[in-house]
């Protein structure tokens, strides 16, 4: 990545970014109670005395959430340590106890690193567990708390398990920040702990942004940017904030340490809370929970259950494909995200055409990821073979694959049922001859060397055969008839 600097009148400035990523865990139930952890249900239907913080209720830690948190820590190369929970005290209507149970000075996962695509290592300070809050909707006004007529609170999200991953201030450009989040997202999805959906809020990013002269080794005063709901927002907000700070400093001003809100529509950040207004969270050990010190055997179980991480899987795919290009990179990202890379690698190992396997996996199989992960590589290979040999056209192969994924069966049988009989070569020959006869002018131009007409003739043949012909074979047949 080329070096990102901001030119000021007095010289060049460097950007320093650290990210805090909140990841909702894909547990069946909430962190401290048995309520379902589901997105999008009717408000206040997945609640109980515990996640409503009713008087007298007590938290009981969800074992599966701890396992997912340990999986995340392991995937990020963290040390998994004996840990404890604290209460973070502040008043907010969507937080039913008016404190959040979180890990403070003894987080579960400490240290670690995430390596960006270009090899840059980004330090991970910690990845700790905490509970999510409910969700407030402000009615009337512009949808923000000030000027609203009233507010509605949905506690379905209250108590949903989160892992907060805190990076070191190692990121030096908006693009690096994007690259960090997208790699982290891939890792979280690969551990099975997250669905990685930023737009649904299951992955939320806060950015700590500061600037300093390129010659400086001291950190500048940072601002924390909130409300970054997409990678695009993240990149724009960091870039905007960096320029804002440089402008301030160039004018002889100073940056105030504060929390700032990103407005996607206006494309700017604005002050939410100054340092003076910052909450004093009055952290103290949560007396309702006992310390969490996962025994070595438990951790070993979690580590053993963890598959390969995206970087290794990309390498494995590239090796199987034997080549790499921009187009393939996107397909690689898709199949890894959906966990289809195992299918791709094993199908290629059966001798199937690697480019075709990759294309069908990333495009068509990706529409039915759950079924695709269960797909037998032998059968998938068989289908790819039928397409590669020209027995099935691309259109036919896609239809067979869709059927294979939704109803199961064997590719050959499905092709039969769908009436996809490969055209016998004499039948295809007859159609081609008929097309030539019916279009003498075009044929003559083609014979005369006008290759642009080839597409016209090919189209005619395909229409006559109702898509049953293999385009590549038709082109070859036309070429051979031209002599």
């Amino acid at each position, binding site marked *: 990545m080329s070096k990102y600097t901001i030119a000021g009148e007095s010289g060049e400035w460097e950007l320093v970014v650290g990210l805090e990523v909140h990841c909702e865990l894909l547990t069946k139930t909430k962190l401290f109670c048995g309520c379902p952890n589901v997105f999008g249900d009717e408000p206040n239907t997945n609640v109980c005395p515990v996640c409503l*913080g009713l*008087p*007298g*209720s007590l938290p009981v830690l969800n074992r599966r959430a701890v396992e997912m948190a340990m999986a995340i820590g392991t995937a990020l190369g963290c040390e998994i340590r004996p840990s404890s929970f604290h209460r973070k*005290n502040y*008043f907010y*209507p969507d937080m039913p106890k008016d404190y959040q149970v979180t890990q403070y000075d003894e987080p579960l996962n400490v240290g670690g690193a995430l390596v960006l695509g270009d090899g840059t290592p980004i330090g991970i300070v910690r990845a700790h567990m905490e509970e999510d809050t409910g969700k407030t909707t402000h009615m009337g006004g512009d949808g923000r708390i000030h000027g609203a007529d009233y507010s509605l609170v949905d506690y379905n999200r209250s108590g949903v398990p989160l892992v907060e991953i805190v990076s070191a201030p190692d990121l030096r450009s908006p693009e690096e920040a994007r690259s960090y989040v997208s790699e982290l997202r891939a890792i979280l999805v690969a551990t099975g702990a997250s669905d990685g959906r930023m737009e649904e809020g299951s992955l939320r990013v806060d950015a700590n942004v500061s600037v300093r002269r390129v010659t400086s080794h001291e950190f500048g005063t940072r601002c924390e940017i909130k409300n970054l709901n997409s990678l695009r927002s993240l990149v724009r907000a960091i870039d905007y904030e960096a320029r804002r700070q440089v402008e301030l400093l160039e004018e002889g001003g100073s940056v105030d340490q504060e929390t700032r809100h990103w407005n996607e529509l206006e494309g700017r950040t604005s002050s939410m809370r100054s340092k003076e207004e910052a909450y004093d969270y009055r952290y*103290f050990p949560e*007396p309702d929970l006992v310390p969490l010190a996962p025994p070595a055997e438990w951790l070993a179980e979690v580590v053993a259950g963890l598959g390969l991480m995206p970087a290794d899987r990309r390498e494995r795919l590239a090796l199987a494909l034997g080549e790499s290009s921009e187009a393939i990179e996107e397909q690689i990202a898709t199949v890894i995200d959906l966990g289809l890379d195992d299918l791709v690698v094993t199908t290629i190992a059966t001798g199937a055409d690697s480019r075709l396997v990759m294309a069908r996996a990333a495009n068509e199989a990706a529409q039915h990821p759950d079924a695709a992960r269960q797909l037998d590589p032998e059968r998938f290979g068989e289908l790819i073979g039928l397409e590669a040999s020209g027995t099935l056209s691309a259109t036919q192969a896609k239809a067979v694959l869709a059927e294979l994924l939704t109803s199961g069966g064997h590719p050959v049988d499905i092709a039969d049922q769908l009436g996809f009989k490969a055209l016998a070569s004499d039948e295809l020959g007859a159609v081609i001859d008929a097309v030539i006869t019916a279009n003498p002018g075009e044929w003559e131009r083609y014979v005369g060397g006008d290759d642009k007409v080839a597409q016209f003739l090919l189209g005619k043949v395909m229409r006559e055969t109702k898509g049953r012909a293999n385009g590549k074979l038709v082109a070859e047949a036309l070429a051979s008839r031209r002599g």
Partner: protein
Amino acid sequence: MSETEAFAGGALQIAARVRSGELSARAVTEAALEEIAASEPLLHCFNTITAELALAGADAVDAKVLAGEDPGPLAGVPIALKDNLCTKGVPTTCSSRILQGWRPPYDATVVARLSAAGAVSVGKTNLDEFAMGSSTETSATGPTRNPWDPSRVPGGSSGGSAAAVAAGLVPLALGSDTGGSIRQPAALCGVVGLKPTYGLVSRYGLVAFASSLDQIGPFALTLADAAMTLQVIAGHDERDSTSLTHPVADFATELKRGVEGLRVGVVADFLSEASGSCAAAVRQAADALADAGALVREVAIPELLHGLSAYYLIAPAEASSNLARYDGVRYGLRVDGDDVQAMNARTRSAGFGDEVKRRIMLGTYVLSAGYYDAYYAQAQRVRTVILQSFARAYEDCDVLLAPTTPSVAFPIGAKTADPLEMYLSDLFTIPTNLAGHPALSVPFALGEDGLPVGVQVLAPALGEGQMLRAGAALEAVAAPGARGPVRPQLGGPMAGVAK
């Protein structure tokens, strides 16, 4: 049937008679409800009386007896519940305006266990607001009066429960003990009060005051009744992460084991801090145990006297957080304001009484940035020192003997103007809570003005067995008339005083 007749022999006797079909649970419940109603204008033990639910519960017990099913070890025994225990559909107020109108959608684990054992809950008893107090005077519903002398406090915070048992309104009651809130009122009311090992009884459904110190326990007229109640409510609960998983001892057996060879330490440091009758009762108790075959010696544990200071940092700190949720958003009182912060502030200003506000402010302060180490962290270090000094004492002792309170019941209003004076009421009970140990108060003597005096038996964690052995020996030789039930002096100076 008169109540005296129905209650003869205490809870175990009632249960035995109900189980045999000799006595109906309904008759017992009706008798209790009648007494409660009659006593309420003078004593005010109850915030809520659940007559209909109680009678329905009693009928269910009787139906089981009739059907030949096991109605449980506490079949038909009326029990009063401190009003900080959640009861499904029944107001649970913590004697605070801020919870007005709130009906929990669930039963506390102890409430469910008692009900399953056949006990019949007759109502919710008065307490100091959110259990913060030592006299039941900080209650938003007005003070409870001591049945021995209605011009005096019953102690607190579980004053309603202690007074209800002392007045013979119910044979059993539950309280909660954060710094002495079961043992201190038990002593001032002449009844048995038992605070179990932290984690022995589930806290699920107990409205939290200070989570690391709170523990639920029974009041009764006899140790045998208290032990049976503890047997019913003790044991692991998966809803409480701090609930212990150890097997629960058989307390009835322990009660009968005697004190031959039991090593008893008299906490010398407390005797000099107690009034004449309270100190004298401990010395008499020590002699009695020695006579019964125990090995009695004096022990010096001066560190325990620092418990009070540590407690008044740790308990308010936890309380400031536990009570944050009463913000007017979801339940209880709401006083509207221009924005949510104003609503929070106005609701809390109107909903909490002075003592609760004092402790929230204190707790908020000691947890604040810059003060945490000097106060909260320091208090936790003192807590560790207390644990260590107890551990040293228990190397040579099976139980410790101490006064429960520095004095007998004091007049209503005597200490309300001086919070620090009030806090001293718990000087001898607090160290136990900081250590998470069990302790009980046995009514043992009559002191100044003919008022009851309790003696406290302390034991190490899960030492309920040896604690009950010593307690039983004391109960056997206690002064006649030192324990309830007593009839409130209706014709006395307090006659006609409205609550």
